[in-house]
C-alpha cells in the first residue's frame, strides 16, 4: 500500500508559494494605491489616464490577493484532510499491532523490541537503543517469536506485513476512516483535538 507522503509535502510547498505571492501582490497593490492617493492629493481629480491605469492595476491586484487567499485556504484544508486520513490510517495500523501484542501476551519490554524488529533493527542495534545487553535482546526476541508462533525474524516480520496487506483494501476508504473513529478508543490524535 502506498502511503502517499510526498503529495502532502508538495501541497505544503505550494501553500508556501501561494502565501509568498499573496504577500507580494499585496505590497504591489499598496504601491499603486499609494501612488493613486498621492496623485489625487496633488491634482484633486482622477481623470488622468495614468491614474486610471494605476487604479485598475490596484483593483486587479487586490482582487488577486483575495482570490489567492481563498485558494490558499482551500489548499490548506485539503492538506489537513489528507493528514487526518493519514493519522487515522497510522492509528489504525497502530491498533492492529497493539491487538496482536495483546493476543500474544507480550510484555512491555517485548513490545518495544518487537517494534524495533519490525523497523528493521538488528539485535545489536536494539541493545544499543535500549541500553541493555545483546543477550537480553536475543532472549526477548526468542520469546517474541515463540509467543507469535513464528520461526524467527523474517517470518515474524512477514506475519505482520501480511496482516497489513490483508487489511489494505480498507485503509484508503472513507468507510475505514469512519470505522476507525467510532470503533476504537483511538489514538490521541483523533480524540484529543477539539475545535
Amino acid at each position, binding site marked *: 500500500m502506498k502511503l502517499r507522503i510526498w503529495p502532502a509535502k508538495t501541497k505544503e510547498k505550494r501553500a508556501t508559494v501561494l502565501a509568498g505571492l499573496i*504577500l507580494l501582490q499585496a505590497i504591489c497593490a499598496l504601491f499603486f494605491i499609494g501612488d493613486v492617493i498621492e496623485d489625487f*492629493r496633488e491634482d484633486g481629480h482622477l481623470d488622468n489616464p495614468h491614474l486610471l491605469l494605476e487604479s485598475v492595476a490596484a483593483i486587479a491586484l487586490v482582487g488577486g490577493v483575495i482570490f489567492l487567499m481563498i485558494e490558499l485556504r482551500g489548499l*490548506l484544508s485539503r492538506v489537513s484532510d489528507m493528514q487526518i486520513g493519514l493519522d487515522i490510517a497510522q492509528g489504525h495500523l497502530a491498533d492492529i499491532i497493539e491487538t496482536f501484542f495483546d493476543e500474544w501476551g507480550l510484555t512491555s519490554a517485548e513490545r518495544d523490541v518487537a517494534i524495533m524488529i519490525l523497523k528493521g533493527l538488528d539485535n545489536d542495534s536494539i541493545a544499543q537503543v535500549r541500553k541493555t545487553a545483546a543477550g537480553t535482546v536475543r532472549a526477548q526476541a526468542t520469546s517474541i517469536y515463540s509467543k507469535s508462533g513464528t520461526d524467527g525474524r523474517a517470518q515474524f516480520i512477514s506475519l505482520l506485513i501480511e496482516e497489513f496487506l490483508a487489511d489494505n483494501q480498507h485503509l484508503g476508504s472513507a468507510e475505514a476512516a469512519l470505522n476507525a473513529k467510532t470503533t476504537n478508543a483511538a489514538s490521541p490524535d483523533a480524540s*484529543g483535538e477539539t475545535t
Partner: protein
Amino acid sequence: MAAVAQQTSGRVSAREVAVWDPLVRLIHWSLALTILLNGTFIEEESKTHEWIGYIALGLVGLRLVWALIGPKHARFSAFPPSPARAVNHLRAMLSGDKTIHLSHNPLGALMVYNIWASVIAIGITGYMMTTITFFGVDWVEEAHEVIFGWLLFSVALHVAGVAFDTWRSGVNLVRAMINGRKTIPYGREVE
C-alpha cells in the same frame, strides 16, 4: 525508547499539529522585520522609513483580512480579544492547568491585538505627518514616537511571554512559528 516511540503509534508519542499556515508565518516575520528596520537602521526622516511603515500597515491589514477568511487557527474566532478569558487563563496556569492552546492563548491574544493596534496607530500618525493639515503638528509627532516606544516595550514583553510559555507548556513556540507545527507533549489536552 522515546526516539523509537516517536515514530511508531500515536499512543506513546508526542504529536505534531499543523497550526500556523504559511501566510500567518510570513506576515509575522515580515512585520517583525519592518519594526526592526524602522526602529533601528532606517533613518527617521527618509522615504524608506515611510515606505516600510506603509508596508507594516499593509501586513497588518492583510493579517486582519486573513483572520476573517482564513483557516481555523488563523481566525479571530480562534483567539477572541477577551480580558476575562485572559484572567481565567492566568488563574488556570497558576493552578497548574496544563491545557495547551493551539492558536494564540488568551494572554497571547491580547498581545497580538495590542501589537496590531499599535502598528496601525503608528502608521496612521505617520501618514498624518505627511498631510498639510497635520504637518509639523506636535501631538501627532509625539503620539507617533510614544506609541512606537510602547510597541518596543510590547515586543520585549512578547518575546519574554513566548519564552515563558515555551518553558511552561513544553511546546516549542518559536519553531512552531517557523515550520507551522506545534509538537504537543504526550497526554496533554489541547484547546
